[in-house]
């Protein structure tokens, strides 16, 4: 895949060594990369295999903390479960659960192509240099500004119109994303026995993130998937897996860490 724009990187040299967060431009990029390496038809993705590989790569790349990747991992795990559901023979109205993922991948791939075109155009333009020397600005009187009251008042109107409804309290526009947080938490549980609440939150969480994550922890605790322990009062607490990981997803088969992905990267 020489035409692939997947970045060159040293992968798996040291397991767990954080390479570069920007080695991939996002989870969709990583997913496309895996599909390309395996020469898989995008319309018929072997979800189970790809999900395992995806988890392994984000583990090896040290991307565990990146919420965007974890969210995708959660989606893949869920998709994998959906694919395992039995379906009746000759059932016509079966809707492929992979459909949405395929749509997103194709759309993203198109954007990649467009971005490539833009990049080539920019490179061509950069090959033409503008004049380097700029004469100092002439010592002219400042251009007389033309503003008048009408303009000012029109601007006032526009500002007022753009202020979200003037209410006494501000409504938080973003609803809690409990579902996303559950997916992320599931993905982390699948990977690790035990981790801290702070690991789950990641870097610089917003209040909404914290609340969503808390609800997700409570939800999975209710299902009996995890236990929570706090060693000191007001300290961070530990989240521990309470059911065997294979009940959530099969462990990636034991192999040299990252070997497949390392080949892929070459």
């Amino acid at each position: 895949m020489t035409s692939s724009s997947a970045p060159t990187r040293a992968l798996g040299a040291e397991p767990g060594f954080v390479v570069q967060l920007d080695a991939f431009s996002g989870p969709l990029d990583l997913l496309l990369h895996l599909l390309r390496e395996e020469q898989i038809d995008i319309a018929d993705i072997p979800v189970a295999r790809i999900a395992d590989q995806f988890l392994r790569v984000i583990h090896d790349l040290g991307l565990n903390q990146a919420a965007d990747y974890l969210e995708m991992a959660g989606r893949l795990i869920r998709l994998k479960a959906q694919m395992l559901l039995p379906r009746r023979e000759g059932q016509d109205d079966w809707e492929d659960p992979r459909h949405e993922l395929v749509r997103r991948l194709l759309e993203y791939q198109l954007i990649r192509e467009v971005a490539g075109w833009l990049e080539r155009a920019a490179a061509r333009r950069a090959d033409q240099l503008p004049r380097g020397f700029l004469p100092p600005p002439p010592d002219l009187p400042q251009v007389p500004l033309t503003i008048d009251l009408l303009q000012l008042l029109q601007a006032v109107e526009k500002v007022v119109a753009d202020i979200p409804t003037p209410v006494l309290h501000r409504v938080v526009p973003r609803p809690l994303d409990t579902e996303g947080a559950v997916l992320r938490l599931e993905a982390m549980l699948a990977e690790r026995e035990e981790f801290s609440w702070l690991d789950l939150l990641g870097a610089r969480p917003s209040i909404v993130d914290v609340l969503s994550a808390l609800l997700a922890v409570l939800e999975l605790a209710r299902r009996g998937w995890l236990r929570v322990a706090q060693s000191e009062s007001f300290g961070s607490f530990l989240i521990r897996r309470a059911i065997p990981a294979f009940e959530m997803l099969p462990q990636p088969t034991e192999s040299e860490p990252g070997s497949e992905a390392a080949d892929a990267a070459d």
Partner: protein
Amino acid sequence: MKPLTQLIEAALFAANRPITVEELQTLEPESALADVRTALEELREHYDFDGHAVEVAEIAGGYQILTRRAFAEAIERAQFAVRTPRLTTAAMETLAVIAYRQPVGRAEIEEIRGVSAGGVLRSLQERALIEVVGRSEGMGRPLLYGTTPTFLELLGLRDLAELPRTEEFSIALHPHKPEASDDGQGDAAASVVAES
């Protein structure tokens, strides 16, 4: 060269951005837009026929004098000037989404790219490649972004119509409908993926 052509050459030399025909007309208020165009044509021909190293380029709705492609490398090697550095992949992808979907909100950009976009949007705004063009009517009235003339300058395009249409890319947006395959997964042709 005619006096108007000289004036225009002087003005284009003095500015380091594309100048529109209307702006050039203010140099000689007596002149018509057609005169300005004729003079620009004369200047262009001068540069071409005499084998000058610079040319009159049509960019972002205006005209700018730029060096011809062949010389950039030698000039950069001699350290007299540097080419504009490349944007990151994330920035280019975000620009691609905005260029084709404008006006477009942050949520849609993030959905398409699968990553959060705050930092990239801010830096594209700081470089004046994108701007806020309005607010959506939806919840929270999110800001909508569009590309700027600086974006066209970066790519050396006359206008947005010069962007290729998405159908021209090798990836079609409509895949063969994913059918209920009975698990012959994995060995299918890599047609769509491979051809990029």
